[in-house]
Structures are given as C-alpha cells and as structure tokens.
C-alpha cells in the first residue's frame, strides 16, 4: 500500500515539474534542459533553511520559489537573447554549472554526501509525516500548480506565448515585447518547479546532487514531449505514465542494476519513437 502511495506522490511531484516545463517549452517553444537545476535549487533551499534555521515549511517554500526565480533571472536574461539552438546549449551550460556548484561547494551543500535528515514539514500545526499526509500535501500543491499554469496558458498572456512560439517576428510586429514574455514565462516555470523540488526534499528527507543532473532534466522534458507539448493534460498523463511504467519492470523481477538502465533505455526509446511517429505527443495541442 505504501508502495502505491509512494508512486502517486512521485507522480504529483512530476506533474508540477512537467506543467511548469510545458509553459516554457510547450507553450513558448523554448526547449530548456536546465529544469532539473531549478528543481534542485528549490530542494536545496528548503533543505538548508530547515536544517540550519529550523524555519517553518511554508516560509521555506516561499523562499525556495523566490530563490529559484532570482536564479532564473540570471539564467534567462543572457540565454534568451540567443536563438533556438543556442538557447538549448546555454541551458545545458547552466545545468552543468549549477550541478557542479551543488557537487563541489562542499562547505555549503556538503557536496556528493548530500544533506540527510531534512525535517518533515509542519504546516500551521498539521504534521506531515506519513505517506497519506504527503499524498494530500502533494495533491494540493499539484492541483494549485496545475490551476495556476492553466490560468496562465488560457489568458491573453498565454496566447501571446503561443504567438512567440509560432512566429516571433510577427508577434513583435504586433507590438508585443517578446523578450519580456519569454523572460517572464521562464521565471514563472522555474519558480513553479522549485515547489516540486521542495516537496521532493521534505518527502525523501535526503537530497544529493545526483537527483538534479542533466538526466533528470531530460526526463522532465520527455514527460512534456510524450504527453504533448502545449497541452497541460498531456503533461499530467505523461507524468502518470512515465513514472509508473518503469515500476512494471520491477514486477518483472528485473534486478535493480539492470532495471535502472532499462528505465533510461525506455525513456530514450519513447523520445525517439514519439519524434518519428507522433511528434505532437499523446494529447497534442488543441487547434
């Protein structure tokens, strides 16, 4: 039973990550492979605050979002001046740099050893310490993140985002400051994924840099692509499938060492097959 709850909690975490990445990559067409870095920043801020200052979870969560948004500003302003290909390369670069900081700034992040014993959250007297309560907390955060993203995607602002993706020059000709739209959506997406990171940190109670690598970024991107770019339901469905399918491998009695590789191979295969046969994903954008 707890095993099932555990998987659902992970699905909730990845729903938050995927809808936020969908705003950036699906709606606005900015393929970013630095999403796991912001996910990690959220996790590290929550963990460090809780461990060193024993501040309450809600405050840490807000600070994590602010921290991720601040860092995203530093990443976005230079990177978004670049065209498509080079934007990806720039996000690659930031992903590697941020990972390297987590891994190497030992006095601050304790490096590859990670941060154990992150205290579980207490929210206005509600102690979140078992699977059920984490499921509820995760559910609330995932629904809020979804509604927030939905509101953005279906507002006039969201329509401009799509306009930027389809034809940036046309959008500019219509008087839209496309740079502003690209930067703000990048900040919003990065702030949202910090929530997913915070949830991950307090749920697992242990974080280390290996959870926030380029592979993790590619995994998040696979969820968005397999689910369908520019469709938030697609991201939810993608998260459910991509998190739960690999668990089947466990039931096939595959040893753990092989299962990890098989999981990655499966993700890679899905990416290639979807690109060849169904580049719009499972549920594509409504037209």
């Amino acid at each position, binding site marked *: 039973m707890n095993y099932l709850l555990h998987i659902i909690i992970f699905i909730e975490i990845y729903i938050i990550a995927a809808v936020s990445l969908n705003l950036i990559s699906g709606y606005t067409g900015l*393929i970013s492979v630095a999403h796991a870095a912001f996910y990690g920043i959220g996790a590290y801020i929550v963990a460090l605050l809780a461990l060193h200052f024993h501040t309450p979870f809600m405050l840490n969560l807000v600070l994590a979002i602010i921290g991720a948004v601040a860092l995203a500003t530093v990443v976005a302003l230079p990177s978004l001046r670049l065209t498509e290909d080079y934007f990806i390369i720039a996000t690659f670069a930031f992903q590697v740099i941020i990972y390297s900081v987590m891994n190497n700034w030992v006095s601050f992040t304790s490096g590859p050893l990670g941060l154990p014993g992150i205290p579980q959250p207490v929210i206005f007297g509600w102690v979140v310490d078992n699977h059920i309560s984490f499921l509820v907390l995760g559910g609330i955060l995932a629904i809020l993140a979804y509604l927030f993203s939905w509101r953005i995607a279906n507002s006039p602002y969201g329509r401009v985002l799509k306009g930027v993706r389809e034809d940036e020059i046309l959008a500019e000709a219509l008087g839209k400051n496309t740079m502003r739209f690209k930067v703000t959506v990048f900040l919003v997406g990065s702030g949202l994924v910090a929530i997913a990171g915070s949830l991950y940190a307090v749920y697992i109670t242990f974080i280390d840099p290996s959870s926030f690598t380029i592979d993790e970024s590619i995994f998040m991107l696979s969820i968005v692509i397999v689910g369908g770019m520019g469709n938030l339901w697609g991201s939810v469905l993608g998260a459910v499938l991509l998190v739960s399918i690999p668990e089947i491998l466990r039931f096939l009695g595959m040893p753990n060492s092989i299962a990890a590789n098989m999981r*990655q191979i499966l993700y*890679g295969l899905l990416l*290639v097959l979807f690109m060849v046969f169904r580049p719009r994903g499972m549920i594509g954008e409504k037209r």
Partner: protein
Amino acid sequence: MLPQLLINGLIAGSVFSLIAIGFGLIYTTTRFFHFAHGAVYTSGAYFAYLFYIILHIPAYLAFPLAVVGASALGAGMELCVYRPLRRKNATPMVLLIASLGLFVILQNLISLFFGDDIKSIRTAPVEVGLPFLGARITPIQITIIVVSVILIIATALILKFTRMGKALRAVASNPQLAKVSGIEPNRTILFAFILGSALAGASAILIALDIDMTPTMGFPALMMGVVAVIVGGVGNIAGAAAGGFLLGIALHLGVWQISSKWQYAIAFGILLVFLLFRPQGFFGKRVRRVSL
C-alpha cells in the same frame, strides 16, 4: 609547473579538437545538434575494449575496427532515424530531441553490456614520463598528440581535395545552392556522419589509452567538443581544431589557480561568454540573421 600544464592542455586539446571537428562536420551539414555524437564517442572506446581485450584481436587491427564500429553506428543513426525524420520535414528541434533519445539509449546499452565500472585498454604498466622541456610526457601521450594531429590534417585534406569533401563543404555553406548544382544532400550528410563519427571513435580510443573509460565519458567530452566548435566559430574546421586546443590549454592553465573539479564549470563559463559576446567564435565571420 607551467610547461607541464601546457603539455597536459595540449593533450586534452588534441582530443577536444577531434571531437569538435567531427561534431562540427555533422552540425554544419545537417544544422541540428547531434547529441548522440557523445554516445558514438563512448562507443569507440568500448568497441576497442571489446575487440582488443575481450576478443584478443591484435591492437593494429582492433583499434581501426573500433573506429569503423563507431563510424557505422553514427551512419546507422543517420539512416534509421534522422533521414526518415528529415523526409517528414521535421524541425531541427524534433531532430535534436530524437538525438537526445538516441544518446540516452546508447549510453545505457553500453553500461548494461559492459557495466559501470572503469574499464581499461592499457596493457603496458603506467610509466614515469620522459623529461621534455622541464615537463614529463609519457609515450602514450606523445602518441595521442601525434595521431590527433595526423587525423586533423587528413580530415582537412579530405575536405579540401576529394569529391565528397568538396560536396560536404558546398552543402555546409549553402544547402539549396548545393542541391541545384546537383549535389545529393542525403549522400553528403551520410558522408559527414561517417567521417565525423570515425573521428569521435578515434578520439575516444586515444583518451582511453591514457585515462581509461566509463559509460558516462561521452557527455562531458561532447560538451567540450561543442564548446570548442562555438569558441572556434561554427562551420570552420580550422576554427574547431584551434578551439579544441585553446579550450584544452585554458582548462589546464585554469587548474593552476582553481581546483580541477571546477573544470566543467570553467568550460561552460567560457562557452557562455562566447555565446553572449562573440557568438561567431574567434575565427568566424559575423553574419546578420535575416528572416521574415
């Protein structure tokens, strides 16, 4: 200290150059980021391990065979995935995502078959290097530099003088014009994959002779190649080679002041500076992007 760092930089740089040239060849003809190039690189080292250590084929045969293996793998990706995608008019973004998928698949297949531990194709014991201008350099390291330089020159000659090489340069500089001049784009792109992947395989074998191999060696190596291409100027073989050497030397001189664990961060810092202030690279010409 300084001569030693320069020599280490030269060794790293010669390998970066090879990866950069291979990646650059493919990028300029296809116009998308072939990330799976990193996994093709890794496959070169593991093919060498398979042929030389597991199958006991003599080195003079095993290593060329491994290069052929890597080359065939790169060509296979082009034929089985990229070409069908291009036929469907896929955007560069779709091709890029597919190549990320291929990268993940290949890297994990390698780790599945060979395991995650460090493998070695070194047979001779590690020796103290020969003294050279106040630094030390091992015979293997000399081999790396010499072979790399030979391969770089050979590639330059192929591009300059052979029919396929000229076609490749034509497609790189203007695909439409090349097509109306009767150059078959698909054949040229395939040639770019064969040549580029062979260079990647060769560079991986060279590096494995010096510092062994792991299944994850490809990603950082590829990234160094990409940085070298951008630093040197996209679409310019000499630039890519020079970019590789510059990057290798910069990283190793950096180690003098900063701990080597920050190597990748430094490399990407350099990349960002170039992307922002000189996206055409050291040697590239400035092009105004015109689009409507």
